[in-house]
């Protein structure tokens, strides 16, 4: 709980540090702040802050906060500092503010906290998406994200208002109280529920609300894309989890068909569209749509089966770590054509470690055995089969289609040779190498010994 405050305060400090022109200390301060927040979780002390009306520090929140702190730490570690300290401090401080919004979403018990968290998450992100001034696509991405995101927030707010009309309160306790009274829910409740769900579907980039995602992923600076693909996805997924599992748990019959249809549509669209892409970041955007769909199914599973709650967290862990790995490597590639597939040609001959890391990360996303991604996919697939056959089949279809575009990318990395037109270099640095090694070890350990290692991780927090 204190972690949110630490992150926010770090953000403020980083913002202020931009005033000091002599040296650039924004990165060290942010890393220090994140490290401090991580330590505060490990200490497991209750800090006597009772905001339980708005936010609760339950085990899920602890685990997700820990994961996101880990990811954010390495994302910022690999952030390329520009020459001007004030730019760095702006970018990093906004990243930290956005991150504190994400942390709010990990344990909310109040619908306005949901709104608050989502807004704090998104608004700095709109600016960050546009932060690459030299790239026209970046401005386009920021604008698109801002406009569509504002729509999403409007839907969210209206939906929350309608839910307030139904329940007479925003908090989860009030909701449970009303549900236990067993009153028939008025029609505008369903409208409100639908609007809130749509807003979160938008954030998770599920079809048919995914249209912003490839453009925004392509245009944003790669580290920001990495942030969006990992932490924002995690935050939106957990937001969805609390909604489906808490606020809308009683009306499961009404949202179940919607969730199934949306997830199947997402599988189909992500698979078919991903195959024809030739830009790596767009390709990864479509792949993350398919992962979001898997996560949605995992949330469904966690709702139905009590002992399968770890499916969601395990999937998020493996997905986030592979996303971190892939995007930090992509970030280091200075490509002339904004990371078209050809930029990756021949990576294996130039930078073996990066090539190995990228391959393992992509294999984990594809779900090849020995990687954590396979175990995560197996968990979801084996548990969704008895629940809903159609989504099971679509999920298999998505895996099959996915392997085509993952393979395309791995081919470029491992086999193709560089042609002159698209020369790109990789800035190798100890931060990148460290990130790669740690992520590879985690992915393989989670893939080979999922039970033991995951329990160990749980035990830490």
């Amino acid at each position, binding site marked *: 709980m204190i972690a949110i405050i630490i992150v926010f305060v770090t953000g403020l400090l980083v913002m202020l540090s931009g005033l000091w022109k002599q040296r650039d200390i924004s990165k060290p301060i942010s890393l220090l702040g994140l490290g401090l927040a991580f330590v505060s979780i490990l200490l497991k002390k209750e800090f006597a802050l009772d905001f339980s009306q708005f936010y609760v520090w339950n085990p899920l929140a602890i685990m997700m906060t820990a994961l996101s702190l880990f990811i954010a730490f390495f994302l910022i570690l690999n952030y390329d500092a520009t020459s001007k300290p004030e730019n760095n401090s702006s970018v990093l401080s906004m990243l930290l503010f956005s991150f504190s919004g994400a942390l709010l979403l990990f344990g909310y018990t109040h619908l306005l906290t949901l709104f608050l968290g989502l807004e704090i998450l998104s608004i700095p992100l709109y600016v960050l998406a546009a932060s690459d001034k030299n790239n026209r696509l970046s401005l386009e991405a920021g604008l698109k994200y801002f406009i569509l995101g504002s729509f999403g927030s409007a839907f969210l707010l209206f939906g929350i208002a309608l839910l307030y009309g139904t329940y007479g309160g925003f908090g989860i306790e009030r909701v449970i109280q009303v549900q236990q009274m067993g009153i028939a829910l008025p029609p505008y409740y369903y409208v409100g529920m639908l609007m809130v769900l749509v807003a979160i579907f938008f954030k998770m980039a599920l079809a048919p609300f995914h249209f912003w995602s490839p453009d925004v992923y392509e245009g944003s600076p790669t580290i920001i894309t990495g942030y969006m693909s990992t932490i924002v996805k995690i935050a939106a997924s957990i937001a969805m989890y609390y909604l489906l599992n808490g606020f809308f748990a009683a009306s499961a019959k009404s949202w179940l068909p919607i969730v199934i249809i949306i997830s199947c549509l997402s599988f189909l669209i992500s698979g078919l569209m991903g195959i024809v892409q030739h830009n790596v970041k767009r390709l990864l955007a479509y792949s993350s749509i398919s992962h979001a769909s898997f996560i949605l199914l995992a949330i469904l599973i966690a709702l139905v089966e009590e002992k399968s709650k770890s499916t969601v967290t395990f999937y998020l862990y493996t997905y986030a770590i592979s996303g971190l790995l892939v995007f930090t490597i992509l970030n280091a590639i200075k490509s002339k054509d904004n990371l078209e597939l050809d930029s990756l040609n021949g990576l294996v001959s130039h930078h073996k470690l990066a090539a190995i890391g990228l391959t393992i990360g992509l294999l984990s996303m594809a779900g090849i055995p020995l990687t954590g991604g*396979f175990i995560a996919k*197996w968990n979801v697939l*084996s548990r969704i089969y008895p629940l809903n056959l159609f989504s*099971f089949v679509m999920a298999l279809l998505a895996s*099959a289609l996915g392997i085509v575009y993952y393979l395309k990318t791995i081919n470029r990395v491992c086999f193709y040779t560089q042609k002159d037109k698209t020369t790109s270099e990789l800035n190798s640095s100890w931060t990148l190498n460290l990130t790669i090694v740690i992520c590879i070890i985690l992915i393989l350990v989670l893939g080979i010994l999922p039970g033991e290692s995951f329990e160990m991780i749980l035990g830490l927090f």
Partner: protein
Amino acid sequence: MELIISIPLLVSLVAFWIPKKLVKEMSLAFSLTFFVFSCFLLLKFDVSRDFNFIYYQEILLEMGGSLFLGADGLGLLMILLTNFVVLYVNLMSWNKDYKNNFYGWVFFMQFALIGVFTSLNAFLFYIFWELALIPIYFILFQYGHGENARKTFVRFFVYTFVGSLFILAALILMKTALSLETFNLKTLTPLSLQGRDAVIFAILLFIGLGVKIPIFPLHAWQAETYRNAPAEGTILLSGIMLKMGLYGLIRWFIPFQESMSSGLETFLLILALIGVLYGAVIALRRNDMKLIAAFSSLSHVGLIAAGIFTFKYIGLQGATLQMVVHGINIVGLFYIIDLIERSTGSRQLTELGGIASKSPAFAAMALIIILGSIAVPLTNGFPGEMLLLFSIFLYNPILGILAGLTIILGAAYMLRLYQRVFMGEVSEKVSAFKPIDTIHLVALGVICILVFAIGLCPQWILDMTSINSQYLANLLEIKN
């Protein structure tokens, strides 16, 4: 057992990193010693127990998996075959200039294959099954050649991956229908699926395994992939990866077919037989030696699969024997083709001729191996093929006669190949025949000895798998 499986993995990692000058020698030395070591395992094998060399660790428990390894007769034979093939891969690549990662991937493949053949847990089996795809893909893609090679290999990978997704679906279906806690073979075999579940399970598993074998409708990836692959890749594919599918049929498909309707059984048998005839007929018309061998392979494994689908004791025994024999013979065949290609620069029947006059020893050994694959008596092909044909004939005389055509057709295309390539006048390409290194001649010689040895005494192989086949046949007779 843990040694058997982990040593190739370690060697693979070593091979990736040691300097290039040493890697060839090291690989050959290692694969030779490992093969000899596995021959020693034969001596330690206890025929009376069902599974030897068992190793059990509890990992991956929540998924129903466990590190449950063990080898029965069939498994051990397959391990021997794997090591044999890897040894020959190293022999074949002796004169070629392959980089470290080639050898690294070959040994990684050995690791994955041994894993497939010794897994006694379905989940573990699946993991190794999918894992085996990665090294072969890397070997093919990096060292393959030919126009459209890249597209072919991508198609190969996607085709096989989708096939393994079918196996995944079958496993999940089984887990849900039987509410399984674990996929261990010992726990699974007493259970059986009912009705519609059983049929769907059978079809899914058939498709998944059938892609690898390949069985008739799912064979489209095979010819082009073999043609564009490097020679070593081809013997890995046809010598041992094929056997993964057949092994899967025997180990994981058959035990659960007690309630299979005989209609479905006949249908699968007919599909396999269509493959036999289809492969043979196409092989008659092809001029590229590699394609002839590829289609002959399709034909032979179709026959083995058909034998398995007869669900009889003789059929299963014949299938196991023929799996080993076909592995040896096809390695020999592709070795010959590769040597000819290296010495003359061509694989086309139209461009070759008269090699016998250039290198009589080579031609003689080639003849022996070809006779072996035709299943001439006294060679190793004969006992297995006879058992398989008996079994199919017992199942249905008409199908048996159709299957018997394979002998005639097989003789036709193989002898056609031999005549065009080795006999007759020396063609242009052959006149510049570079002499073959002794090491290759020795390697071929060993295969020829094996052809005769196994042809004269196949009984020890049959004894090794007798318990397993008997057990499976009994399982299936209950419903017959």
